[in-house]
């Protein structure tokens, strides 16, 4: 039997091989990864030579690497040869023609999240006027940004129009060899966002992937690069409030941030990829590398994330505090319900003098969810007067879930000051009863208590995002109690 199935799978693979055509005109490639596929992607996107070579170098190194196994998550092995690494943005012809054609369950969720009608259509990928509404909105914003000298475009556009900036900064924060998933991303990334804020410019608005029309179709391997030049400020929102209806699918994104002297970057994420159903079937594997480099003096990078989606989350938005007096912040809410698993946290690498970092992590576990905080605070001997404060709280709903904390502290400088606080608590029956005695339903009481638990993180989010995050949390925890 074993031989039979071996033969069968060989046959299947063979078929794929035969089906493989490096036709530049076609929109997808058959599953599988090879140098040919990478060359195809690069050619398809009309990339300059340096980038093709960069991808190939990443790929060759990736072949020598092993998938990390240290995270507190479990999943079936991923067959990297069964993934299709390039597909052009979906044609508008395949998209639903109106909201009537969209899954009603999806619409119900939008309703609960309070997403405006025209937004709903766009999120669901409806190819009608509603979409064009946001196109015109986006165009207006683009004009305003251009006036300020801000470059905000898709990664592909940046490669075409600003290759010198891309070449200068790409891979300088997350090198191609950084880790297994980052190497894979470097080899095959298809698109993403690019931001450049010129010297002394305070970006006139919050930049959001909402405004980017192609954001919905950027695919599994996104690449984002944000460069804040000297004395500039930018706040970037990465929102995926639409649950994506997908089978187990790998998302291996890379985000690189560079802050030069006196620059500030605030990066906020609300992640709600499809988490799988209540039995743990399906859902996204969200294996993301996010890192910011405080390259200049007095620079600041602040990460805020609300992670409610994905079947598995593996992500550690980090800060390299290279410049003297630079500041790194990490504020996180991670929710795991049903069979979701999260292993998330941050790394704060203190290199410069008087560098400061703050870590506030709130993990919420419900159902059979497993939630791990993993954080590294490393103080190098050069980081005189460095300071870190870490607070790591876990909240458990029910008795089938788990919360785990893995803090690593490595201080090699005597004058450094590192503080770590951690708590684990359950929503008590007494708290629930108290709220219910005041007239709240059990579900509302849970939501209120959980939102209270997350308040320190939510207050770091831009206003409109904070409301959305709160609603999202409520939806994510639906049915977690009672």
């Amino acid at each position, binding site marked *: 039997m074993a031989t039979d199935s071996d033969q069968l799978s060989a046959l299947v693979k063979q078929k794929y091989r035969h089906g493989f055509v490096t036709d530049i005109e076609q929109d997808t490639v058959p599953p599988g990864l090879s140098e040919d596929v990478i060359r195809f992607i690069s050619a398809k996107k009309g990339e300059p030579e340096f980038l093709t070579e960069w991808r190939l170098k990443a790929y060759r190194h990736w072949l020598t690497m092993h998938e990390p196994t240290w995270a507190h998550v479990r999943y079936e092995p991923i067959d990297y040869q069964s993934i299709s690494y390039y597909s052009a943005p979906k044609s508008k012809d395949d998209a639903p023609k109106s909201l009537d054609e969209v899954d009603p369950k999806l619409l119900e969720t939008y309703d609960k999240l309070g997403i405006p009608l025209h937004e709903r259509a766009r999120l669901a990928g409806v190819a009608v006027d509603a979409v064009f509404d946001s196109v015109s909105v986006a165009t207006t914003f683009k004009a305003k940004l251009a006036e300020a000298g801000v470059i905000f475009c898709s990664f592909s556009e940046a490669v075409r129009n600003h290759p010198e900036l891309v070449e200068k900064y790409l891979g300088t924060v997350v090198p191609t060899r950084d880790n297994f998933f980052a190497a894979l991303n470097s080899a095959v990334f298809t698109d993403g966002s690019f931001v450049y804020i010129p010297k002394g410019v305070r970006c006139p608005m919050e930049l959001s992937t909402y405004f980017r029309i192609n954001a919905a179709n950027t695919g599994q391997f996104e690449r984002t690069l944000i460069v804040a030049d000297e004395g500039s400020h930018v706040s970037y929102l990465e929102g995926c409030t639409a649950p994506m209806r997908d089978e187990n699918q790998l998302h291996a994104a890379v985000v690189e941030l560079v802050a030069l002297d006196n620059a500030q970057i605030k990066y906020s994420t609300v992640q709600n990829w499809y988490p799988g159903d209540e039995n743990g079937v399906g859902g996204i594997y969200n294996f993301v590398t996010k890192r910011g480099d405080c390259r200049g003096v007095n620079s600041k990078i602040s990460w805020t994330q609300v992670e409610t989606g994905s079947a598995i989350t593996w992500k550690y938005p980090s800060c390299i505090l290279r410049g003297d007096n630079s500041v790194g912040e990490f504020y996180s809410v991670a929710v795991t319900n049903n069979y979701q698993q999260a292993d998330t946290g941050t790394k704060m690498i203190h290199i410069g003098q008087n560098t400061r970092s703050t870590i506030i992590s709130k993990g919420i576990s419900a159902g059979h969810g497993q939630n791990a905080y993993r954080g590294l605070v490393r103080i190098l001997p050069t980081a005189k007067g460095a300071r870190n404060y870490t607070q790591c709280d876990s909240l458990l709903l029910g008795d089938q879930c788990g919360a785990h904390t893995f803090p690593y502290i490595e201080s090699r400088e005597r004058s450094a000051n590192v503080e770590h606080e951690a708590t684990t608590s359950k929503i008590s029956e*007494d708290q629930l009863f108290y709220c219910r*005695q*005041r*007239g*709240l339903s059990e579900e509302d009481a849970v939501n*209120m208590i959980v*939102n*209270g*638990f*997350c308040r320190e993180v939510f207050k770091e989010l831009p206003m409109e995002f904070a409301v959305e995050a709160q609603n999202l949390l409520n939806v994510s925890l639906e049915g977690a109690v009672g």
Partner: protein
Amino acid sequence: MLKVENLHVSVKGTPILKGLSLSVGAGEIHAIMGPNGSGKSTLASVLAGKDGYEVTSGSVQYRGQDLLEMLPEERARAGVFLAFQYPIEIPGVNNAYLLKAGLNAQRAANGQPQVDAFEFMRLIKSKMELMQISKEFLNRSVNEGFSGGEKKRNEILQMLMLEPALAVLDETDSGLDVDALKIVAAGVNSLRSPERSMVLVTHYERLLELIVPDRVHVLADGRIVKSGDRTLARELDERGYDWIQAEVASA
């Protein structure tokens, strides 16, 4: 208003209330006194619908409804309020936010319009003055870092806002100094009306000097063993509970 008949309640299999009967008419204030462990707080918890109390027999009628059939939040929305002996802390949850949510849940259940933040502030202003609570108090987390006296005043503030038909005050006087006790009593007395009934669970008579009850009941070993007017409370204060227990034992 409230009619408790032959109520038997067990906690984890241990009988606590053993045939308690109590009838409270509209507009009346009844005090339940008794030694520690007699079942006073159990009665308060059962009336509010707390989990973990098993009613083995008997009945509780509230305005003609079977109270025991209702969920805790349904009782609250129908006008049953419990002032907790130990108000619980809820970190991160804004004090005003919880109260406004409770008020609006009650109003929704009664077909009344919702109050917005401005209306809420208008309603609560004079009540906060009465309870001598400052404005910043509203923006703190529910009971977090409150002193014992602040927690109890907050309970009464909530009661003033929710305007219950039946208020059960569980040892609201415990841990209060004389000044705080006066503030709490003033709050409670301001709510006295012919439509509103109250059950004061207390260990000490001093509260009853300030909130004068219509009836006083002595609870011992899960039953009401003696009832009288306010003079009974004074007698208990002077003579303690032993004589009653002796009286019951010899009866």
